[in-house]
């Protein structure tokens, strides 16, 4: 076969390719030999030779992919499929970043300040809460406000926001999930990235507070980066876990919301752990406390203790394990649930 056969006739096979009659069979065979071109013979080969270089596609050069789905793959097969999802989804990181970025842009399209509306509202909240609580706790504004601003932003734009949005990481992408096969990891990365962007906008508030009170944390602040990395991992786990559960059970998001509200009060966010003194023995039982501390303490110029780090990593490992088990179990069903 020539590499590039002449352009095949535009018409599909004629409407009645099989005239009844004794000769039909032979005629058909000839057609299949490619004389007629249209049904499959030469056309097919032409497509493979010339069509594989189709310019608009840009994907044809890849090796022939294989899609295998079997209902009886068992636990190991499910785990392998979930792993493949993670691997393939990570490869599509460009898409995930674009989607997350567009989410933010579209959310604030047409508003004057854009995502900085968030920053502004956070600033107002921090200022008012700082004024009220420094009176209540009998502390100076200068000592309290840097702590409060970092805490509030990390919780509201960090842990709390991500936990809330993790619930909709799959249901929010319903249209995509039902239109094409796409690793769920893409939606997870998108959600986490979107929240990182929001956090980045809000971090301006504590920076402003630091500047006003001259309370810059020093080089220890760099230590918050490994903590942030841990948050990203936990955030992904949260998206896999909550995204799948919330797709199945639609009353979970409000439950998550209520639990977060409770967590907000029992975790040292607006109050300082030192205020509890000896009564704070139960603090390490709250997973949010060490997780909060590994990012917050460096930003306030402290180095988190080894115990805090161990607790944070331990809780994260357990959480990731639960999330992985659930995602392995639920992955193939999510498309039915959303």
């Amino acid at each position, binding site marked *: 076969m020539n590499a590039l056969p002449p352009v095949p006739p535009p018409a599909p096979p004629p409407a009645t390719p099989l005239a009844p009659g004794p000769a039909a069979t032979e005629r058909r065979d000839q057609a299949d030999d490619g004389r007629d071109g249209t049904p499959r013979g030469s056309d097919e080969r032409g497509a493979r030779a010339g069509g594989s270089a189709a310019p608009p596609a840009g994907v044809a050069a890849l090796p022939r992919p294989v899609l295998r789905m079997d209902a009886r793959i068992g636990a190991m097969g499910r785990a392998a499929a979930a792993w493949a999802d993670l691997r393939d989804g990570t490869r599509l990181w460009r898409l995930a970043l674009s989607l997350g970025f567009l989410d933010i842009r579209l959310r604030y399209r047409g508003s004057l300040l854009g995502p900085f509306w968030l920053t502004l509202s956070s600033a107002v909240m921090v200022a008012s809460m700082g004024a009220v609580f420094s009176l209540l706790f009998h502390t100076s504004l200068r000592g309290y406000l840097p702590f409060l601003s970092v805490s509030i932003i990390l919780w509201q734009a960090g842990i709390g926001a991500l936990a809330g949005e993790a619930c909709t990481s799959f249901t929010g992408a319903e249209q995509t999930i039902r239109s094409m096969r796409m690793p769920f990891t893409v939606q997870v990365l998108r959600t986490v990235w979107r929240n990182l962007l929001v956090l980045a906008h809000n971090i301006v508030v504590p920076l402003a507070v630091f500047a006003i009170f001259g309370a810059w944390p020093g080089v220890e602040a760099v230590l918050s980066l490994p903590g942030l990395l841990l948050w990203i991992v936990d955030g992904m786990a949260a998206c896999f876990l909550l995204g799948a559960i919330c797709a199945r059970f639609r009353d*979970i998001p409000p439950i998550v919301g209520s639990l977060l509200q409770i967590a907000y009060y029992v975790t040292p966010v607006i109050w300082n752990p030192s205020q509890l003194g000896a009564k704070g023995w139960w603090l390490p039982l709250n997973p949010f406390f060490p997780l909060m501390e590994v990012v917050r303490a460096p930003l306030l110029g402290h180095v988190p203790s080894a115990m805090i780090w161990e607790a944070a990593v331990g809780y994260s490992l357990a959480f990731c394990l639960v999330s992985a088990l659930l995602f392995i179990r639920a992955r193939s069903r999510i498309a039915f649930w959303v």
Partner: protein
Amino acid sequence: MTVDGSLGMLPDARNGDGQGGDVRGNGVRSDDVPGHGIPPPEALDAGAPADPGDGAAVTVSALSLDFPIYHGGSRSLKKTVLSLASNRMGRSRDTDAGTGGHLGTDRTHRVVVRALREVSFTLRSGERLGLVGHNGAGKSTLLRALGGIYEPVAGSVEVLGSVGTLLDPNFGMNLDLTGRENIVLRGRYAGLNGTGIRALEADVEAFASLGPFLDLPVRTYSSGMVVRLGFALSTAAAPQVLLMDEWFMAGDAKFQDKAHRRLETVVRGAEILVLTSHTLEILRSWCTRLIWLEHGAIRMDGTPDEVLAAYAGV
């Protein structure tokens, strides 16, 4: 005697008719059996080159899909927990409807639609399969299962080759983005790099011919323009296995010709086509094989003429 004669005449006459019919019937039959019934495999042997291991292929074996129906309480964790705790006497029921899959309940007493039941078939490079059946017979579900969107509840699906799904013309299109931004986004969905995206942009721009509108938000487009853009985007890729819903027949007449030609290029470029349509002419002219789905199961599998004749007779 008269009665006898007439009785005798009737078989005769019938015989005479039968002769003619037989000749034709023979013709049809011989045409039917080797030429008609067997063409798919034969045509394959003749049509597909001697490298079937290299070609695209679709293997579906005993595929079943149950669709959970979540309505009211079954979406609620509270109610699910309560019903698991208290309700252990629910009985499985199986109702039959004129169209659609069978309704039933599964182990946990969820109502499910048996969207596909024990569907098995094999497609090899060069086959163009059409799916016919009433609304809800499982055609779109089967397409989605082939595309890997729905994973089998029982049985297996194996697809060799890149898969392209043309199910939703506006898939991935965001009304608040400009046409150009949508092109980039779609390129990212397809996993294209910068060069691929630029090529896609040039291709779509040339085909959709939206002019300056390409730089305006899609929200400002007329519905026809949205269709153009969506169509151009969906048909830009050249997959080896093309899964297509019938939506593409929509659109204004002038655009339709152009769309038709482009679609044909894509279809010809694909090694395997699976198409659902209610338009019998399309099925007859585009497909080499039809599968008639009824209540999620294969009712008939054969050449377009065969299946359409039986389908129209119902």
